[in-house]
C-alpha cells in the first residue's frame, strides 16, 4: 500500500543531499573540531560551514549561532539561560498560553527558583495580541517569549510587534521559531528578537541538529558546564554529522523557500477547502491566512482524534492529533483549550502537515478516503446520535 505521510510537524525526511553531506562525518572525517591536528580541523571547518548556512537562513552572524541537540534544548537554554543571567533585573516572565511544552515547562522550572510567569491569552485562532503582552509587562519583567509559529494549529504570531512593545520597556525577547524556520522567511534583524530557537528536523535536516540564535552582547548562563565549545555557552563535543546535516538543510531551505512555500500553500489550501466539502461539522483550527504553508489542522466534531489516526493509518495516511487519548498523559492539547474550544471539540483534533514531496494527488486521495472514515466513527458515536436527536426535535 502506498503511504502518504502528512506529519511534517513530527518529523521530516532528509532533504536531497543531506544524508550524503553527513555520511563522511560518521566515517573517515571523524575528527573532533577542538583538535589542532588536520583531522580535527577538517571537522572544525565543516562545523563552521554549517554555522554559516544556519546564520544566513535567519540573517544572523555566525558568532550568534549556538548549536544544540534539539529545539527543546534551545528553548530551555533561552528561557533559563536568559532569565538566570538577568536575575538582578527582575524575576518575571511573560509567555503566551500556546507555547511549546519546552518553553512552558522551562518557565515552570524557573518558578521553583523564585521566578513568576504571566501567560498571555490567545484568541480563537491562537493569535497573541501585542496589547495583551504589553498589559502583562511589569517593572520586574526580564523576558518575553512568544513563538513565531504554532505547529499544532499553524498560526503565525505577530512577533515583530511584540518585540516593539517589549523593547519599549527594555525587556528581552525570545521566540521559539522551531516550527517556522526553514519553512517561512525568518529574519532575526527584522524581528528584532534577542534569541530565537530553530531545529533542522523541521525542515528536512536530521534530528539532533538545532540551534539557538543569541544576539551579540546578550548575556546567557549556560545550562551545561563544560568546555569551551560554542563560546563556552554550550559545552560538549560537537555532534558534527548532525550539525553538518542541519547546515545542509538550512542551505537547501534558503534556496527553495519561495518556490517551496508557494507550492505548499496551494496544496494546503486545496486541503483546507476540500476537506470541509467532503465532511460536514468540521472546523479549521488556527488562523486562515496567518498560517504555516504546510499546516492544515481541523476539529472534526463527534469523533475522537486517535480513532481517526488509526483509521487513516490503516488506509495509508500518516497524520497527527492533539486529542487527550493520543497523548500519553491523557490530556487534551493546552493550545486547543487556550483557544477556547470545549473538550468534546478538541478531542476531534486532526492535524495534517505536508512535506516537500506531497502532491495534489495525495491531497485528493486523502479527501476521497476521509468521508467513509468519519461516517464509520460517527455511526459509533453517542455524541453524534445525541446531536441528530437534538436536531430532529
Amino acid at each position, binding site marked *: 500500500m502506498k503511504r502518504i505521510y502528512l506529519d511534517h510537524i513530527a518529523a521530516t525526511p532528509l532533504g536531497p543531499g543531506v544524508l550524503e553531506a553527513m555520511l563522511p562525518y560518521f566515517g573517515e572525517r571523524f575528527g573532533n573540531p577542538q583538535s589542532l591536528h588536520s583531522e580535527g580541523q577538517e571537522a572544525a571547518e565543516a562545523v563552521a560551514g554549517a554555522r554559516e548556512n544556519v546564520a544566513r537562513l535567519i540573517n544572523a552572524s555566525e558568532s550568534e549561532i549556538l548549536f544544540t541537540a534539539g529545539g527543546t534544548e534551545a528553548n530551555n537554554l533561552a528561557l533559563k539561560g536568559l532569565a538566570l543571567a538577568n536575575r538582578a533585573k527582575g524575576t518575571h516572565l511573560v509567555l503566551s498560553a500556546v507555547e511549546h511544552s519546552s518553553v512552558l515547562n522551562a518557565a515552570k522550572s524557573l518558578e521553583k527558583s523564585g521566578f513568576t510567569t504571566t501567560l498571555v491569552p490567545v484568541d480563537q485562532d491562537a493569535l497573541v495580541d501585542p496589547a495583551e503582552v504589553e498589559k502583562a509587562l511589569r517593572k520586574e519583567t526580564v523576558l518575553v517569549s512568544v513563538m513565531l509559529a504554532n505547529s499544532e494549529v499553524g498560526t503565525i504570531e505577530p512577533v515583530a510587534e511584540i518585540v516593539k512593545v517589549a523593547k519599549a520597556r527594555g525587556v528581552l525577547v525570545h521566540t521559539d521559531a522551531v516550527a517556522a524556520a526553514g519553512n517561512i522567511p525568518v529574519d532575526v534583524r527584522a524581528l528584532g528578537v534577542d534569541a530565537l530557537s530553530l531545529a533542522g528536523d523541521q525542515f528536512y535536516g536530521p534530528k539532533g541538529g538545532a540551534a539557538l540564535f543569541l544576539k551579540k552582547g546578550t548575556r546567557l548562563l549556560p545550562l551545561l558546564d563544560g568546555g569551551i565549545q560554542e563560546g563556552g555557552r554550550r559545552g560538549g563535543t560537537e555532534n558534527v554529522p548532525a550539525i553538518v546535516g542541519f547546515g545542509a538543510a538550512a542551505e537547501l531551505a534558503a534556496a527553495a523557500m519561495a518556490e517551496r512555500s508557494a507550492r505548499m500553500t496551494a496544496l494546503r489550501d486545496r486541503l483546507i477547502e476540500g476537506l470541509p466539502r467532503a465532511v460536514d461539522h468540521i472546523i479549521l483550527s488556527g488562523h486562515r491566512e496567518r498560517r504555516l504553508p504546510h499546516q492544515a489542522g481541523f476539529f472534526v466534531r*463527534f*469523533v*475522537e*482524534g*486517535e*480513532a481517526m489516526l*488509526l483509521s487513516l493509518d*490503516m488506509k495509508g495516511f500518516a497524520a497527527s492529533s492533539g*486529542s*487527550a*487519548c*493520543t497523548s*500519553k*498523559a*491523557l*490530556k*487534551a492539547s493546552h493550545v486547543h483549550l487556550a483557544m*477556547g474550544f*470545549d*473538550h*468534546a471539540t478538541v*478531542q476531534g483534533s486532526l492535524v495534517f502537515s505536508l512535506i516537500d514531496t506531497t502532491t495534489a494527488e495525495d491531497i485528493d486521495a486523502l479527501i476521497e478516503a476521509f468521508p467513509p472514515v468519519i461516517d464509520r466513527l460517527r*455511526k*459509533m*458515536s*453517542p*455524541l*453524534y*446520535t445525541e446531536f441528530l436527536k437534538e436536531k430532529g426535535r
Partner: protein
Amino acid sequence: MIYTDKVMDHFANPRNVGTLPDADGVGQVGNPVCGDMMTFYVKVHDGKLADIKFQTFGCGAAIAVSSMVSEMALGKTLAEAMAITNEKVAEELGGLPKNKMHCSNLGADALHLAVRNYRDRAAGGTAKMAVGGEHEPEGEGEAEGEKTGSCPYCEGPLEGFEELCACKHCHTDLVECPACGKYTKKAEAACTHCGAALSK
C-alpha cells in the same frame, strides 16, 4: 503498533455497534473531558442478555473494549454479565497499553450500568438510563484552577492535571472528590481523604 492484533480487529470491525430504541436497560459512562464516552443498550430475555448494542466516542482502545465487552456479555445471564471484570476484558484483548487501561474500566462499567438500569426499571424505577462517570461534564469556558498534589497510590506528582482521569505515572483510575477536591481511586466507594461518598 501500540495495540495488539485483537484490539485492532475489534477497532476495525467492532461487533454490536448501534442503539436499541426498545432497550430494557441503558448505561452510559465517561465524558469527552476524559476522552471517552460509552453507551450500552441491553435487551433482556429469560434473565439473559438477548441483545446488546453500544456506541462509543473515543480512542481505538475504547472502541475495541466496548466491542469486546458486548461480545463477552451477549447471551450471558445478568449475574455472568455483572461478573465481567475490567481485567478479563483487557486479557481477552491480549492486553492494552498501560495508559489505556482506564478505557477497559469504562467498558465493563457501562455494561454494568445498563444491567443496573434494567433491574431498576424491573423494580419500578423510571430512569431511562443509568449514568456514571468519572467527572461531571465541565461548563463550557469554565476556568478551573490547576490542582496540585500527588497520586494517592504511587505518590507521583499530579501537578497541572486539572482534568485528570488517571494517574500518568501508575495509570490508576482516579476520581476527583466532589467534597474536598482531592483525588482518590475510582474504585473506592468513599473518598479516602475526607470520607465523602463517591457517586458511581
